């Protein structure tokens, strides 16, 4: 048996402990202690869990790739400065390991105001501020997305767009596509991903590759907004092909001179 100290950062606290608790239990671990706090950037969950050594990697993999987890660290409990000295990180798409907050930050949320934001962490408060407007005006949401881009610091721009996309995609899935059977990835792309994405942009689909033509978020010579589409597809398709997690890779972007923006979907 091992005891692990796990620290998780998520965009919101509602249901976080219940969802991650299920992952912990599913891997034959039991929750010894937990602490859930919230600050302007999101929710911080610290857990001490105990379970079989052979399940440790599986647990870390599932937590690290969970859709609610933006960043994640785990270490053996009781080792002095365990996470600080030897982080066992499973970075998510959104928050690379090198850019995760320090353990001190994770255990004790910083006092307000928080500045500057860690690089590549989404500006959760700005995203939360924008989301109701996206829901209200969907699918005419580009003005709000441009406003979001302009309202966050440059290092947080792409991850904020991605978070907004993921939350919007999950919402659209629940609203319009949740009724019916769970689908395989190819069917989910064809029957859910493409009709939903067509409401936002002109697209072409070739298997797992999606081309976004004339994306208003990716004009030549300016910033790329492709991360929004990636997050949108991950949120939209993630729920329909569970238990697998969907990843979207960005292959090319109009903003860097390509003819169109290309994404690749996988799980």
């Amino acid at each position: 048996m091992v005891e692990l100290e796990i620290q998780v950062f998520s965009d919101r606290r509602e249901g976080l402990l219940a969802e991650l608790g299920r992952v912990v239990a599913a891997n034959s671990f039991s929750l010894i202690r937990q602490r859930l706090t919230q600050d302007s950037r999101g929710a911080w969950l610290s857990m001490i869990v105990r379970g079989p050594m052979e399940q440790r990697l599986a647990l870390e993999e599932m937590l690290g790739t969970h859709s609610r987890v933006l960043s994640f660290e785990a270490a053996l409990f009781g080792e002095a400065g365990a996470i600080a000295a030897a982080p066992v990180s499973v970075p998510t798409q959104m928050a690379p390991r090198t850019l995760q907050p320090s353990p001190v930050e994770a255990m004790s949320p910083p006092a307000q105001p928080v500045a500057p934001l860690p690089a590549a962490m989404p500006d959760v408060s700005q995203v939360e501020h924008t989301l109701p407007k996206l829901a209200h005006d969907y699918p005419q949401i580009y003005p709000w997305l441009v406003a979001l881009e302009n309202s966050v610091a440059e290092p947080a721009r792409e991850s904020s767009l991605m978070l907004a996309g993921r939350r919007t995609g999950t919402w659209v899935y629940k609203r319009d596509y949740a009724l019916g059977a769970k689908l395989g990835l190819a069917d989910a792309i064809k029957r859910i991903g493409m009709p939903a994405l067509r409401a936002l942009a002109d697209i072409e689909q070739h298997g797992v590759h999606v081309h976004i033509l004339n994306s208003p978020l990716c004009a030549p010579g300016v910033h790329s907004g492709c991360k929004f589409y990636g997050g949108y597809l991950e949120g939209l398709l993630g729920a329909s092909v569970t238990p697998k997690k969907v990843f979207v890779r960005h292959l090319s972007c109009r903003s860097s001179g390509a003819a169109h923006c290309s994404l690749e979907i996988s799980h």
Partner: protein
Amino acid sequence: MPMQLSYNWLLVLLSYAVSVLGSFTALQLAVAIPVATTHHQKTAAVAMAGGAMGLGAIWAMHFIAMLACDSSMQVTYDPALTALSALVAFAACSAGLMLVGSGLFSWLRLLAAGTCMGLGVASMHYLGMAAMMMPAVTSYNMGLVIISLIIAVVASMVALWLAFNLRGPLQMITSALVMGMAVCGMHYTGMAAARFEDNGGQLPDGYATGLRGDNLGLTIFVIVATLLVLMLVLYYWRQRYRSSLNI
């Protein structure tokens, strides 16, 4: 001498319309089975979907179609067999919808669910035919009976696939139209398989106490009205749910 059957085409069309209405309501309830989070929600969705399909799309359709059929003799229906036919339709449809709605979708599940529902449609029909009391003897062309079974099973499978795998208006409309074809296709093929021979005016026991067309008409009206109310409530509830979702 075999009797000639004639049909009131308006009632035939009405039977298809009722079947589509029942299928639409049932399948819209059924597609919520995979997203049910509690046992109670799942049971409620299965029971309501099974009821709409078994009693609305199949049972009510069958008896409207029987009212549309004129065999130039007075027919009554055995109450016990008539009730049993409704129960069988409800049970088979509930089982089929639960099969296809639970767990991950697979071709094996679809085959099992389609067979269950197709046999449910057919069992209801042939039990309903057995409930007929009239001065005639009924016999069947077995080739056409088998074809009616195949129609019921295959069309049920197609309808279930459409309902659970597609999304949007195509999912809602097409699946109901196809399920209506499954029920009506089976019924009218089954009717074509039946042959009624005059037995010289001998009435079976219980003929006088059997259910008559006017009794059935009232029951059918109640079922169809319930289906309509259920569909409207479902539509209203889904609209409220959509607008209450937090992004």
